[in-house]
């Protein structure tokens, strides 16, 4: 393999990993606050379809991305209202959200299937994009990819060294104690759920506006579920989510590249590669049980009822 091929593979890896990073970061923050939202897939699909519709009608991709984010937030608010305010079962509500999002997006997008779109173009970062190899891989991407870098850094920083991060963790660990400390548990959870929705909407928008600029029913193809497991295997750490997502991206590209070589493995076996590789590495990373347990939000999935 020559250097250009490797560069191209890594370039594609970053693009493939991006939607996973976006959703997984959102879900991580959401779970850190103690809310398990299984509605990722539904929120992504809504972001994808509404963003695409906005792009076709307004012709403005910036507006389209914003609307995709907004769609994700609205969907997450529906989930938040049911699971936080009305204290419903989070798992059931999340699943309902996924099914609902899948159906509603198919219904809304019925007339938009088969329409072509130019899509978000790459934006070269001055100077940095001229660096050989590295420049091509990291700095000749589209703006949404850069946004995923920024968001990962932001989430890492918030949980590493801010009071906000501490508050979110407190709410996810022990909401009663957090409440006693004067933190408004419901407000924090709502904010985190909305952040999760915004990121899922953004990831959906990335798919329908940048990655494959088209709308088709069920186009997320299970990425929301992969992101969901990524969060767990990454033991709720932003940097590991990034690693896992890129690993997954690289493995899915390799599964296609290897087919062209003399490497004779059945394609269906190769198709498993991304899943196996990602789980394998992340399990290795989180093999220290005590540490992993420390990272798991203790009240994950438990609705909080304020004591009156």
């Amino acid at each position, binding site marked *: 393999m020559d250097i250009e091929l490797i560069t191209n593979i890594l370039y594609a890896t970053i693009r493939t990993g991006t939607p996973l990073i976006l959703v997984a970061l959102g879900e991580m923050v959401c779970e850190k606050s103690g809310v398990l939202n299984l509605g990722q897939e539904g929120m992504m699909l809504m972001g994808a379809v509404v963003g695409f519709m906005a792009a076709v009608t307004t012709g403005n991709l910036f507006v389209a991305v914003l609307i995709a984010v907004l769609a994700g937030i609205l969907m997450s608010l529906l989930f938040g209202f049911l699971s936080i305010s009305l204290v419903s079962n989070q798992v059931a509500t999340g699943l309902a959200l996924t099914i609902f999002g899948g159906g509603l997006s198919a219904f809304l997008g019925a007339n938009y299937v088969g329409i072509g779109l130019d*899509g978000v173009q790459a934006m070269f970062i001055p100077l940095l994009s001229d660096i050989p190899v590295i420049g091509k891989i990291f700095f000749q991407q589209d703006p949404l990819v850069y946004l995923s870098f920024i968001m990962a850094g932001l989430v890492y920083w918030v949980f590493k060294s801010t009071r906000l991060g501490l508050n979110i963790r407190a709410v996810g660990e022990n909401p009663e104690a957090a409440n006693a400390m004067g933190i408004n548990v419901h407000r924090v959870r709502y904010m985190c759920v909305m952040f999760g929705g915004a990121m899922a909407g953004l990831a959906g928008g990335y798919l329908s506006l940048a990655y494959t600029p088209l709308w088709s029913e069920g186009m997320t193809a299970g990425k929301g579920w992969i992101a969901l497991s990524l969060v767990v295997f990454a033991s709720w750490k932003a940097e590991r989510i990034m690693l896992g997502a890129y690993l997954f991206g690289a493995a899915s590209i390799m599964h*296609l590249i290897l087919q062209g070589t003399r490497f004779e493995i059945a394609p269906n076996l190769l198709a498993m590669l991304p899943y196996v590789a990602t789980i394998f590495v992340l399990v290795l990373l989180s093999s220290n049980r005590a540490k992993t347990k420390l990272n798991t939000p203790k009240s994950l999935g438990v609705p909080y009822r304020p004591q009156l």
Partner: protein
Amino acid sequence: MKLITKLLTTSAMVAAIAGCSDSTTEETTAAAPEMSKDSIKVGFVYVSPTGDAGWTHSHDQARKYLEAQLGDKVETTYVESVPEGADAERVIRNMASNGHNLIFTTSFGYMNPTLKVAARFPDVKFEHASGYKQAENVGSYFARPYQGRYLSGLIAGKMTKTNVIGYVAAFPIPEVVRGINAFTKGVREVNPDAIVKVVWVSTWFDPAKEREAAETLILQNADVLTQHTDSAAVIQTAEAKGKYAIGYHSDMSEYGANAHLTSTIHNWGPLYVEKAKAVLNGTWKKENLWLGIAEGATDLAPINDIVPADVKAMVAEKKAALKAGTMRVFKGPINDQSGVEKVSKDDSMTDGALLGFDWFIEGVSGTLPKS
């Protein structure tokens, strides 16, 4: 208060779950009219949504064509996104029992459900696409898109500069293998140095994965791409990367004005009109049809003007020969991947051999997974 909260939650959940059933739209009229030969009711069962620019889209276009051609004499209904299996049987039975005279079931997996329902409704005629079993009131039909593949292969062979052509394929079943081989036959006929690289994506429909596969092929020097999957992602990728692409199922030119050279398309309209007329006249009989360019069931979309006039003329000539029946796509000599002659110079492959195609011809690069 607690009770009210609980009630609210439950009703909201029910509403949320009820919303999901929207994806399967059923369009049937309630009353079953008296069976009459002055007008008939024709039903269609689709496996995916009608707007997918792929397989189902082509059948729905034909349904509209049927309505336009026969006007008041037919009333058509359809059910889309019907999963293959138990659901299909329920949908088909429902159609049969509410007054449909002719039902087209348009996916391979509907074969057994169709036969099962047909046995209980001897007065209703059934037509199943792409299957191989028939019954007294069940006929089957399929197109020969491989003929279109061959013609588009001629164009690809002429247009490639790197002599590498990429093929994104779904599953290694005979239908897909036949298409790859026919395409390669066309490519090699005009350009013996070119190879066709095949990448399996193991899915009929996943735009992201199709795009990744297309990008991989471009990385490996391919400058003309084609696909046997259901989305237009490959065409879009080629457009974005400044390469050429050839579509499948329907005219995909709107996804890449510069990239799109042509597409192999299905045209079921004339067949559907003929079958509906046969039921109207009471002359319907079961058939096993395999229709190609000669019958108009397979065709090429308009060829992009980037393609030189002499290439267009050559394609038109070959197409005319296929139409007249003076030429066959899989005429010998045909070698397999290892260069061993499988079909001799004076021979050509029979339909039976084509239906069971399980080896690649010379010029295909890629492995055919054995089951």
